[in-house]
């Protein structure tokens, strides 16, 4: 569980991002502690992915400060983020289809820069994939031949390779089957128990409440509340949509009026 005594590993204060005239993020504050899963939720366009990309060094922030382990840092490049210990699993996975699984796992971190140690890399790839209970038949096939779920597993395995302080997962379960989703959630808990911080982005409230220690809601690029894992569906939905009377609650009401009361709302 979250370690409340030590300070946060990652602390964002007043982070903003402008895309031209559009304000994608406005004055965002957020903290991630050791051994804590922070879920980042919000509707499409709320700025979740933008925030992840800033922390991953893909986009530059417009203003605000980022503290990593009590030091103010600039994350100018993806390489810098990895150096600090911030690993990211992007929504679009960012794998090289022409390379095999081993090459993708170790991309940029190859063992033996002047004489690639393929055997060692292959063994470590199998170990890593086994830890994740991954169903990948062969690590010597190009990524192009893998299914969406298998690619997701490869991407997650890759982020763990460097033993990062913080791992960010952008919609990690969106493309996964039932068993793999459970595996990924287990994995998130395992990563947390090892003392890493996890930032999880998901549209699936069930997943979020299952693993998150705190739920940070973004709405239209702004902070819109922080909840515990015991927050109700209604509370989260109203924070996400910005109104207690919203299309989701109206739909739920209409359905419960029409039939016997039902819990949970289809996404």
């Amino acid at each position: 569980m979250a370690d409340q005594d030590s300070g946060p590993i990652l602390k964002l204060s007043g982070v903003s991002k402008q895309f031209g005239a559009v304000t994608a993020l406005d004055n965002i504050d957020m903290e991630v502690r050791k051994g804590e899963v922070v879920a980042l939720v919000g509707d499409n366009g709320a700025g979740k992915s933008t925030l992840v990309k800033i922390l991953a060094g893909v986009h530059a922030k417009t203003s605000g400060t980022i503290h990593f382990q009590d030091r103010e840092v600039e994350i100018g490049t993806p390489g810098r983020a990895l150096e600090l210990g911030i690993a990211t699993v992007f929504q679009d996975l960012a794998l090289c289809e022409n390379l095999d699984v081993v090459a993708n796992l170790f991309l940029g971190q190859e063992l033996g820069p002047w004489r690639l140690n393929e055997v060692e890399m292959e063994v470590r790839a199998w170990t890593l994939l086994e830890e994740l209970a991954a169903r990948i038949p062969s690590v010597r096939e190009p990524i192009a031949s893998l299914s969406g779920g298998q690619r997701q597993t490869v991407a997650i395995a890759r982020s763990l390779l460097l033993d990062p302080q913080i791992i960010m997962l952008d919609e990690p379960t969106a493309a996964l089957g039932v068993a793999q989703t459970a595996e990924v959630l287990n994995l998130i808990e395992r990563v947390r128990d090892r003392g890493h911080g996890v930032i999880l982005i998901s549209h699936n409230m069930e997943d979020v409440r299952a693993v998150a220690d705190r739920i940070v809601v973004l709405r239209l690029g702004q902070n819109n509340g922080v909840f515990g894992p015991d927050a109700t569906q209604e509370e989260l939905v109203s924070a996400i949509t910005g109104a207690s009377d919203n299309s989701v609650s109206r739909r739920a009401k209409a359905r419960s009026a029409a039939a016997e009361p039902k819990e949970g709302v289809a996404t």
Partner: protein
Amino acid sequence: MSDTRKIDRADSRVREDTGLAGAARGFLDQVKSGDLGILPVILGLVVIAVVFTWLNPIFMRPQNLTNLLFDAAAVGLISLGVVFTLMLGEIDLSIGSMSGVASAILGVLWVNAGVPWPLAILAAMLAGAVTGFVYASLLNKFGMPSFVSTLSGLLALLGLQLYLLGNSGSINLPYQSFLIRFGQTMVMPGWLSYLVALLPGIVIFALGLQTRQRRADANLSVPAWSVLIVKAAGLTAILLIAVWYLNLGRGVPWMFLFFAVLVAGMEYVLTRTKFGRSIFAVGGNREAARRAGIKVERIRIYCFMICSTLAAMGGVLAASRLASASRQAGTGDVNLNAIAAAVIGGTSLFGGRGSAWSALLGVIVIQAISNGLTLLNLSSSLRYMILGAVLALAVIVDSLARQSRASNGRA
């Protein structure tokens, strides 16, 4: 196979391709899914050999083949360089002009200014490196597509070549010098060429042995003995026959060995180093490479510099082959021959796929066609048209193979 499952064969969905039959089946699967490998080259060479020998028996004579190898080395080096830009999904259209400028620099510095030839060659290579750096920087800083920057470079370099050569238009290089003998007459002693022909097979066998041992130690599946032995023995047999046949005539040119050694070195760089892996990654998915922490801009700079520098070296070899630096050097079909050679050999124009061997195999095909057409006394007008068609054909094959790979999930 031991009774315990190997780590990488634990999944029941993986077919166990063991032994020669397995290797053959794997190869067939690859070809069917659009991973053609060296198949087009072999088919091409057989067709070329049959057709040209039928039209003019001189084509297959050992003397002519030695000539062919002399000619192949210069274009081959240029082609080897362009592999590095093609791998990134970029192109360098100015390699011909670059080689022309390099030969002009060699002529002016060595003959006109009296600089020792090794220094003159170094200067030419330096010019190549700078040119490559400029192209990469234009791409990095201004997002100028390499297609455009190198096309304008083609013209600019051609201008520089004409400027350097001045009014005379051509500079004759001293016949008695080492460089010219290297480019025109020097062949390996017979015994040495046989020894060298044994080398690749031995290296393949030794490395295979080592890999087997290390994989076995790590409890990974090991490739079958039979495949390794057939590979090594087959290659050795082919090389020995080729060397024997060439030694019936003049022998194996040193210049070709020089080229082959460079190809082997570059193949090592591409497949066995982190740098090479980064090149594949940038060519396959630039954004993914960037997010993995690869410095894409730096990779581009290195690749373009390697390309132009090798083009400059190719120009030097071409000059030594002709014993002159002239206005015609590097013009005409040199550009497209070098690019076509890489594509015929299996390097994709779309980036992310290729090998250094493709330059060697492809240039032999291209040079064989060119040589055969010359033996038939065809005018250059016809030669250009035929070579143009061959290039178009190579690109069509590349494109179709790529579509097939995409639909078969092999990228």
